[in-house]
């Protein structure tokens, strides 16, 4: 039994490596900046959704306020860079740690909440943070922060001549998020989280300290999400509360996992690859003036998937996996 399991794990790793290599080579054949942009966003959302998946998929604590951590990461990096000249690399770590800390602090009161109360609390907390940032003059209030792009280097993580470095960083981020999930899948954490998700009372009776496991998931998830936010700040060079802490972001982080397979290793990646190009393309070709067709398309997709195939699409591509974390 151990052998088939080890084989499965190896297969996952090799597939991931192969996909990463292919992805790394794609920019060599694609020079259209618009397409490159979509690819960067797809990878970023893959990373974000993978991080979201850790708390909401594996551990079952559905958060629709993850934009909070994304925004915190973005703002930490942007503020440290523009106000204090701290390099974004440190900003990223700082943003990650701050977010993880806040996630755990919020966990104390929030993890006592059941189901819908919890989801609404996450929405409310993110909205509150957004409103506070909109009124925080030092952080630019509603106008946000403009990150002047003066260099073109890895040191300051700004590139003017090409989007490719951003692409490779996003790829690395997605890879890291995937690897973290992969590693955690075969650890006590994944078992505790899924037990807590499926039946917290039974989990307690088996020695699982439910609260601690939720905290662990929250911290890891928040950290990675914040790093994604830091990346985004450097990528677009301008952030404001609405664009990095808005509810639509929270939703967009969750949807790839829901479509691809919530609580699975490959779900978020698959979902991102399907959803993000789809939304970008429908938005430009049909819904240019905000006519909502992209909303109709992916809204319908969400409804269909959650009703007809709640375990996500990932099972269709790999008949061996039943869509559970195996």
């Amino acid at each position, binding site marked *: 039994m151990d052998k088939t399991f080890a084989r499965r794990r190896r297969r996952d790793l090799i597939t991931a490596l192969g996909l990463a290599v292919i992805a790394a080579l794609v920019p060599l054949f694609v020079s259209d900046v618009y397409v490159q942009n979509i690819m960067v966003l797809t990878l970023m959302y893959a990373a974000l959704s993978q991080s979201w998946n850790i708390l909401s998929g594996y551990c079952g604590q559905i958060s629709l306020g993850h934009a909070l951590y994304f925004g915190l990461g973005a703002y930490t990096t942007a503020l440290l860079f523009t106000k204090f000249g701290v390099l974004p690399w440190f900003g990223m770590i700082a943003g990650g740690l701050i977010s993880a800390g806040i996630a755990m602090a919020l966990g104390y009161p929030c993890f006592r909440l059941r189901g819908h109360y919890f989801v609404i609390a996450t929405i409310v907390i993110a909205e509150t943070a957004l409103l506070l940032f909109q009124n925080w003059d030092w952080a630019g209030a509603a106008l946000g922060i403009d990150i002047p792009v003066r260099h073109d280097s890895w040191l300051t993580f700004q590139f003017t001549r090409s989007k490719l470095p951003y692409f490779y960083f996003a790829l690395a981020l997605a890879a890291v998020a995937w690897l973290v999930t992969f590693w955690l899948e075969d650890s006590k954490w994944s078992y505790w989280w899924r037990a807590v998700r499926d039946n917290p009372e039974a989990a307690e009776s088996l020695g699982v300290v439910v609260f601690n496991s939720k905290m662990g998931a929250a911290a890891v998830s928040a950290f990675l999400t914040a790093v994604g936010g830091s990346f985004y700040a450097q990528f677009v060079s301008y952030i404001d509360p609405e664009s990095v802490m808005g509810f639509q972001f929270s939703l967009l982080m969750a949807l790839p996992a829901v479509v691809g397979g919530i609580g699975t290793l490959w779900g978020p990646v698959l979902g991102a690859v399907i959803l993000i190009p789809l939304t970008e393309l429908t938005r430009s070709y049909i819904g240019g003036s905000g*006519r909502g*067709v992209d909303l109709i398309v992916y809204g319908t997709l969400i409804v269909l998937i959650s009703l007809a195939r709640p375990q996500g699409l990932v099972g269709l591509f790999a008949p061996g996996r039943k869509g559970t974390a195996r």
Partner: protein
Amino acid sequence: MTAATIFQSLASGLLMGLLYGLIAVGLALIFGLMDVVNFAHGEFLMIAMYATFFLFAYLALDPLLAAPLVAAALLVFGAIVYLLIVRFAVRAKANAGMVQIFSTFGLAIVMRGLAQFFFTPDYRSVTHSWLGGKTVSIAGIFLPVPQLAGALVSIAAFAGLYFFINRTDFGRALEATREDAGAVALVGIDKNKVFALGWGLGAALVGLAGAVMAMFFYIYPDVGASFALIAYVTVALGGFGSVFGAFAGGILVGLVEASTALILPPSLKSVGIYAVYLLVVFIRPRGLFGSI
């Protein structure tokens, strides 16, 4: 800031709160009935407002007259949503919570997209209504008549709902199904019919609210989103599953919102509500009057 200003604000807050309660009670009803949160509730409000607008624009119907029609239309719509979508969502064996959340969320997104597509993102408003623009003075406090009418509609609706649930056969069937859906089947009550009508009723109530609100709010595709969050907070505050809780929660939310607007800059007025919600659920994880 004078006492008069404060009373004025609180009075407006109370009126608004009664409306929030009306929006929220449909949510509370549905949840109490079948343990499902309708994350498309804001969009139900939105289409009610649009329906009122179009009845006004094309048939010159005053919103007050349109209200019963809109409520009836929403009744049908709510039942359809149950039969086509929610019925399947509750059958999910695994990941049940997630399925319920995202299936109704997906619906919300679709509805918003459809609204944008068919009605464009332009802001609409009901420019002339019977009560529009009129104010009445009660004990020195000026109350806008549309909002006052809205509050009265809300109170009437709650009274009607109370009577309906406690005194009619269907209302009792609703309560019975809420208590034990399985047992109800044994007595010959079709669970699906009850649930569909429950959804219809919940939608009709928010339809009433939408018709009233069309008198004094702008109407646009995303209008539901802002009120939806207030509705969820109201229901969660009052306790999911409690009709009285929605009523009380609504009033509380309205008053808190008004008070916050007195102290903080207007853009932060929702922070007060959010803070109160968090405070209440942290202390009483089931809300103020909740049974779930």
